[in-house]
């Protein structure tokens, strides 16, 4: 019996305490829609999160939901995926979480290309601790609760993701759920580490990069706002690597990095870079453990029915026998 799964299948009755109008709602429903579109049974999905407003996301999703530590979402997610590679593993978290305290994990995850999808809620602030500057807030900006303008420069998450080795890199917008949903689906279906940075307005603490600002309501042309956000695919941008050719890969990486610096009047969303020619970490493991996919760590029998170990170390012991 196959029951068709709908968005409702991925909801929980847990009370959602995000501020009204928060961009997080859009990201949450995009994730749920993506899972429903792909018809992945909830028990085969594990959603991990860090700490922050964004960190509460798993509690609102009907799937294994693991709300971890500040900055540590990726190691948890990787551990689960490597122990059971048949799971669909999503990692979500704030920009402070992933690019500040968790920056080391963000970079090193790129080196491995484990098949997970990582979504960063980029609101420019530390929401849950009341609006301090996050690593993506530009220098000179003074959001509502900052006592002084920010004197740190912003980092560029897309460019870092390219340099770190992520093989699917995209940017979405929290209020364009249809588009974001498609990015998340592509991320899940991509075999390797997918990074999706989502522009997420925080109406409570970020009064600069607001929904209205993204929509260009401050610059009306002929009675109509001129939106800042545009879609890469609408302008013929193609971030996909077409062959395993080293030069082509590099050219596509440089293209993505160049594009990622476009900001201000025009802000691109969509797929910046996609490369299907880099083996996943799981594939790399199979070079040493041939049956890794069929007998991964979480699935291996370790004991007989009466609790005896089934391992034989007779052969290994030879090197120690005297």
């Amino acid at each position, binding site marked *: 019996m196959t029951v068709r799964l709908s968005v409702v299948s991925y909801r929980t009755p847990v009370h959602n305490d995000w501020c009204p109008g928060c961009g997080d709602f859009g990201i949450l429903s995009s994730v749920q829609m993506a899972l429903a579109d792909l018809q992945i049974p909830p028990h085969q999905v594990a959603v991990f999160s860090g700490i922050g407003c964004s960190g509460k996301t798993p509690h609102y999703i009907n799937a294994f939901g693991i709300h971890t530590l500040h900055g*540590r979402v990726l190691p948890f997610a*990787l551990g689960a995926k490597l122990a059971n590679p048949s799971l669909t593993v999503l990692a979500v978290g704030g920009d402070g979480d992933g690019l500040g305290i968790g920056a080391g994990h963000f970079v*090193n995850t790129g080196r491995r290309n484990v098949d997970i999808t990582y979504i960063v809620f980029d609101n420019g602030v530390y929401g849950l601790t009341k609006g301090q500057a996050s690593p993506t807030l530009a220098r000179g900006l003074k959001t509502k609760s900052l006592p002084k303008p920010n004197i740190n420069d912003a980092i560029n998450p897309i460019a870092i993701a390219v340099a770190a080795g992520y093989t699917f890199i995209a940017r979405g917008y929290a209020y364009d759920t249809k588009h974001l949903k498609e990015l998340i689906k592509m991320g899940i279906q991509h075999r390797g580490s997918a990074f999706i940075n989502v522009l997420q307005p925080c109406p409570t603490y970020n009064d600069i990069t607001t929904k209205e600002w993204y929509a260009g309501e401050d610059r009306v042309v002929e009675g109509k706002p001129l939106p800042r956000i545009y879609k890469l695919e609408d302008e013929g941008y193609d971030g996909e690597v077409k062959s395993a050719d080293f030069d082509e890969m590099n050219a596509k990486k440089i293209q993505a990095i160049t594009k990622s610096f476009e900001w201000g009047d025009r802000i691109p969303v969509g797929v910046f870079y996609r490369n299907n020619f880099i083996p996943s970490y799981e594939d790399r493991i199979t070079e040493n*453990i041939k049956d890794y996919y069929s007998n991964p760590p979480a699935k291996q029998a370790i004991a007989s029915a009466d609790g005896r170990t089934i391992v034989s170390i007779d052969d290994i012991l030879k090197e120690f026998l005297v």
Partner: protein
Amino acid sequence: MGSTKISWMIGGAQGTGVDSSANVFSRAAAIYGLNVFGKREYYSNIKGEHSYFSVVISDGPVRSTMDEVHLLATFDSETVVRHAWEVMGGGGIIYDSMAVNEKITSIPTLEKPVLERIQMRLSREGVGETVGDVLEVARRGGVRLYPIPYMELLKKVGELTGEQQLSALSRMTNTIAVGVSLSLLSIPMNHLETALSQVFRAKAKVVKSNVLAAEVASEYVKNHFASDFPYRVEPRAKTKKLFISGTSAVALGKIVAGCRFQTYYPITPASDESVYLEDHQVFDIYHEYPHLKEVEELNGHGSIVVVQTEDEIAAINMVSGAALAGARASTATSGPGFDLMAEGLGWAGMNEVPVVVTLYQRGGPSTGLPTRHEQGELLFSIFGGHGEFPRLVLASGDIEEAFYDVARAFNYAERYQTPVVHILDKALANSNMTVDVFDPSKIRIDRGKLITSWDTSLGTYKRFKFTEDGISYRTVFGTENGIFWNTGDEHDELGHITEEPSLRDRMMEKRMKKLEIADAEIPDSERVILHGDYDAPYLILSWGSTKGAIIDAIEYLASEGLRFAFAQVKLVNPFPTRFLQNLMTQYRKLIVVEQNFTGQFALLLRAKTGVQADHLIVKYNGRPFSFSEIRDGLKEAVIHGSPRIVKRSGG
């Protein structure tokens, strides 16, 4: 029946093969049928600094090193200068006859305080400052001198093997030192050949030329010092044994215990374990269990995924992720790494995740003495991390125990669904000893309330359901109808955030209850091991790798009429309070032995039982207790009554 112990030492600059020559010597002795215990001392350095191996061989059990050296094998001046003082009267020093004129001030790696100490001793003896003068002082103390013309012997080896290159030949210098040692000790040369082929696996040419070198050495000894060395030991009955290091034993323990996911960030001395695991990633499965479908699916072999992470924070948290997916998972680290794991350990405690951390203590604080020994993390392993959560802390006393304890650690973790710290140390990690062949059939695997499916007629699955014993059924990722949530926040039975005070109370009590259950369930015999003379007037209390030196010392002291009982505490959390309270009343004096400054175990003992130990024997210079130090320390305690005794030996 008394046993004979002979202590042998070899030293040299790091990177010149001291390790492998000690390994070859030890194996040759072990193959001969002797028991062997060897410890390695080295600087946090790759090439050039002094390192040495201290080995005890015996016809009886041997579990520790001793300060007195019977035979010192050297091939460089620094080893002579540093260690000649440790050789006992009647013992011997093997040295390079060409080096006697070297000035001790010309040894660049000798630290100033060491040099000054030696200069003072030499001037007190009224001699000069050469290597020869050091040897002269030793000779006056009754030490026999064995000058070896290494250069000449190497040339001979060159003639025999056809090897012309001096650099290739000089690599055999230490084999000559080993050959001379074995000859002086009358250990048959044929065992050396077997040992060499084990150590230099598959390098037949290397083995062959080294055998030749040893023969040349042996010939030289016969011609010059025949039956001159007074100490020797012969094996009793020969049984098959393992000669193995602590890190390898733990790695094997993990494979056997079903650990299938290991993470690590490189750190001394813990990473040897993970590197060994990665090297033995795929292993055999018994074919005797074909009736189990799951076992059949393995097709005769199992495997472990080993991940080198970006830091220890990732290491512990990846382990939690893997454990939630259903794998037995662990990480191995040392002090600085364990500090970084504190937050992750608390998360696992809060979410009742079975994780095992193998903690190899080393000299702290901070980077401390990265390659040296200490037991400075007892209290941190029990209390480290913010807030309160249950954890079990298990301390192994020696290499053999460590192998079997790994399975216990995993069983505790899964049974009580909480983190377990398996606390070990550098001394155990880097010693090698002969042990009885490991017997995996003694091991039982207990996965506790792990379930593979959930029957919805029982209602919604609740990961943190309140139960009598505080332990709830545990599903893993992928279990249909078994979905759960985890959070580091306080949570309800489903795993969703709550700040409701009464729920908080109940959840806190649920988690802590598990420690009470563990305390009630785990038998005393698994928690405390009694050694020595139960009816003695004095009780020694200790934990961890001090075990060997203590047992060796009390066996020795028994021959002098001094009797001790020894309680080796293995499960330090939950603490065996009642058992120790009862036990301690039966003794006149209590002596705590441990390797730290503050006496952490003594403190814990007092906190838990209200009993203050009468004597504390401690050491914190980074070198493990020798048998000799414990022997002397126990005498100081019971004869002179000193309350705090600090030991300071070791090079």
